[in-house]
């Protein structure tokens, strides 16, 4: 074999590989996909406001309804602030909840209990614990550090006619799950579906995105469901009156407003 043919066949092989491999696999690292997905899902806009209806349903069909206004503001360096005002159930109306979320340490949480007019700091179990008794954890609501998991692109697959990356995430240290599969929309980067596997390797939780709407040209999941397939418990979440970039001031996220939130933000 001559020097020329050797070189030629090498080049040919490289070319073939480039042509034959699916373009997106080459184009995007799995961690990159997750990062973009988190940005689209948890960090869209400068700030965010919505009226949220959360329905908890037991296997037996018993239901609990929680209705709240949720405010979110993105800060410097990946920090986020959340403000939640509960409208129902009636006997907890006026309860407010505030979270300062930091990228690399535990969040701070405060709760205002109107019946005893007390603001209390809460050290919750950890970010894996349930968010207001729902099937969503705090992590599911506000995101999980990108570096906490090892991400791997498994395949590409269509979900309800939308092409998605299927990314597997395996935690580096003990977490709520031992493996997560996420179907991430190749256009909007919103998760369309997620499957969570527990320590026994068994599927226990499934996230499904429902209706997606363009709001101020930001794709937003308006309806979502988290179902614990093992316990049969299910949480449906509906977003209403979603608005981005409404200009929430930093002063809102204070003890003073926790006790007496301004009418215009919580209605």
């Amino acid at each position: 074999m001559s020097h020329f043919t050797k070189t030629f066949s090498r080049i040919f092989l490289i070319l073939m590989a480039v042509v034959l491999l699916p373009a997106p696999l080459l184009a995007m690292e799995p961690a990159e996909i997750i990062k973009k997905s988190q940005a689209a899902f948890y960090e869209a806009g400068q700030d965010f406001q919505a009226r949220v209806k959360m329905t908890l349903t037991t296997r037996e069909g018993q239901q609990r309804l929680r209705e709240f206004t949720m405010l979110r503001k993105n800060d410097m360096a990946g920090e986020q602030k959340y403000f939640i005002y509960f409208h129902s159930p009636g006997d907890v109306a006026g309860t407010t909840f505030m979270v300062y979320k930091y990228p690399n340490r535990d969040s701070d949480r405060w709760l205002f209990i109107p019946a005893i007019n007390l603001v209390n700091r809460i050290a919750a179990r950890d970010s894996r614990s349930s968010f207001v008794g729902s099937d969503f954890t705090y992590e599911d609501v506000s995101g999980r550090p990108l570096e906490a998991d090892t991400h791997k692109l498994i395949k590409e697959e269509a979900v309800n006619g939308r092409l998605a990356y299927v990314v597997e995430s395996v935690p580096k240290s003990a977490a709520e799950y031992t493996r997560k599969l996420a179907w991430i929309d190749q256009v909007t980067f919103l998760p369309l579906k997620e499957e969570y596997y527990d320590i026994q390797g068994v599927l226990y939780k499934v996230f499904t995105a429902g209706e997606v709407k363009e709001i101020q040209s930001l794709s937003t999941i308006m309806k979502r469901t988290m179902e614990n397939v093992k316990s049969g418990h299910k949480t449906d979440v509906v977003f209403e009156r979603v608005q981005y970039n409404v200009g929430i001031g930093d002063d809102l996220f204070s003890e003073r407003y926790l006790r007496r939130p301004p009418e215009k933000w919580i209605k």
Partner: protein
Amino acid sequence: MNSSVRKVPWLTRFSVERPRLVMTLILAVTLLFLTQIPRAKTDTDPKNMLPETSPVRVYNDVVEREFSLHKDVIVLGIVNDDGIFNQETLGRISRITDEIFKIPGVVVRDVTSLTAVDNVLAEGGQLAVRPAVSEIPRTPGAMEELRRSLLTNPLLVNRLLSGDGTTTAIYVPLEPAANARLIADRIKTILPKEAGRERYYLAGDPVARDTFGIQMFYQMALFSPIAGMVMFVVLWWMFRNLTLVFAVMGVAMVSIVWSMGLMIGVGLPVHIMSSMIPVFLMAIATDSIHIFNEFYFRFREAPDKKQAILDTIHAVGRPVRYTALATAAGFAVLALMHIIPVKIFGLFVAFGTVVIRLMSFSLIPAVLMSIKDERIRAVSLKEDEIAHWTSRWLSGLARTGLSHSRLLAGGGLALLAIAVLGISRTHVNNNLVDWFKPHSEIRVADQIMNEKLGGTSLAYLAGVSSVPDFWKRPEALRYLEGLQKDLEGLAVVGKTFSVADYVKRINRVLHQDTPAYDRIPDSQAEIAQYLFLFGMAAKPSDLDNVVDYPFEKVNLSVQLKTWDARAMRDVIARVRTYTAGHSLPGVEFKPAGIAYFNLVWNDEVLSDMLRGFLLAMVLVFTVLAFNFRSLRWALVACTPLLFTIAMIYGVIGYIGKDFDMPISVLSTLSLGMAVDFAIHFVGRFQQRYQEEGDLEKAILWTAARPGKGIMRNAALFAVAFSVMAFAPLTPYITVGLFIVSMMLLSAAVTLVGLPALIVLFQRGLKLSSIKEKMP
């Protein structure tokens, strides 16, 4: 052929003519039933004593669903006598918990241990909800602080932690379809890796059930055959002929294989009750001894074998038929009861009894035909009611009965009075854990856990209202708190737990851990917001286990320190008294949980058995009356049996043994079996008296000849059943001892008491008219 031959059943005549064909046919049918045995499935769940549709099971399911409770929970107790608050023990608890998470079939989200239970505490001015032990303290100071904090937390003490800090428990709930044995075995493989100063105890309903299942198989596969072997040896010693011994054993085996084969064949599982069928059939099969007993005497008198066989069947045919009828009736009565395993047991023992009777008239004559004449002759020469010492001794017994009839009757009446007093002291109770032997792993584990923690037997009291948010009202929770306090006044109650405990705890923690706030707040909004807060921080099942979604129903759980059924009876009585004295309109407290189930089940079995006993008594009496064509004779024949039963229950009353499930089952079973002796005695006596005409001589002959059969039967019974005294489970031991004493006692009373009764009541019994009645 003489006239007696024509009265012998057709089956026997055929068997004597074609012994080989008969034996082959029986063998073929037996093999057919035998093919079903390997398909056997066992059912060791005591819950299945009651059908799934029974109200108590249905309501238990409702409570479990409404409060997200798990049916099966394995409990691992961990004890370190030096205290568990050291890095090593806490490390082990944490590692074991993590390993348990990995076992398939374990409900990961609801495993409860010090490292996986939500604890509500005040910490540096904030409210924290996190595992009781979230990280293991590194300094002695921090360790002491953790110890103090956990031991003063009423949510944990007696549930997860003993008051002295030496014991903790890991509660492992199982998925409904999980195999409890496999999971328990996996947990056992974790423990050796964590061997140290700690002692581990595995307990809980599923573990007990599986251990029970294994030991039940031991019982069937080991103790039934041993009892068979012992019978074999005793039979050989009595008759000195192997073929004969094989015949008796063969009858037993055939009936066991046919009835177990049929039962398994129709798809019924082997339950604790039906696992005793083989032993019972073996015992009932010993009735065929009367045939051999008589045959030996006959063969000695008239050495034509075929003739001797036919004569024997002619002589004992009627008593054999009626004893089988009485026994079958006594068991078949159980088919009318409510408890399904009891029904099945009764039906298949009755079926086996019918098979035994069939064999008595076919297999036994066929086998006797195939024995070489000289073989039997040598042994039968010894069978002489006058010469042999046993026969002389037996007629001596009867003579005592005859000559001291009044004294015996008086003594009997006195004993009866004493026995009745004993019976009046009977405790009705049942304790499933006591079915295991005192030093068994299960009993020891249960005892330790009950000593250290709140108790292993769990009851639920569902407080049911129909008003949404009812259980957020201060007065409702205060009522609940009061009821809990009242129940905890009972010695058997180790701990109670309800939503009120969470509310009090949060109230205190939100007020800088001030003890004065360890109470129910005054406003509904406050309670609602506390629980909302708790629901925001803890795992969902914490709240779901104690209150339903609309807050209409609460679940008050009560841990009992004993599995005694009567402990639950006390709890229910206490609730009734409390609710009568304190009213909470619109609320009803309904019991549920395994402790309540055990009570209901216990009561149902007992009342079923009492009904069965009375019904069996009426039936057996009817069979006797029909057999003797006389009510008075039936009464006389019943007396030894009733006397024996009174004696045994009298003793049980005096020694303070609980009148429990096995004992109550036995009472019914014993009737049909113990009456056999009297049927043989009275039947043969009547025959003899007819031929003889002399009362005294006829009685002495009956005692010496059929009496020997009775004695042989009783001895065989006693020896075979005494093997059960070594069984691994106490119900089997009870059954063994009970039957041994019943058989020996009723044989003795029959041999001594019946002669006395016959002499005393000879006028009333119209002895003179017997000749005319029975041609």
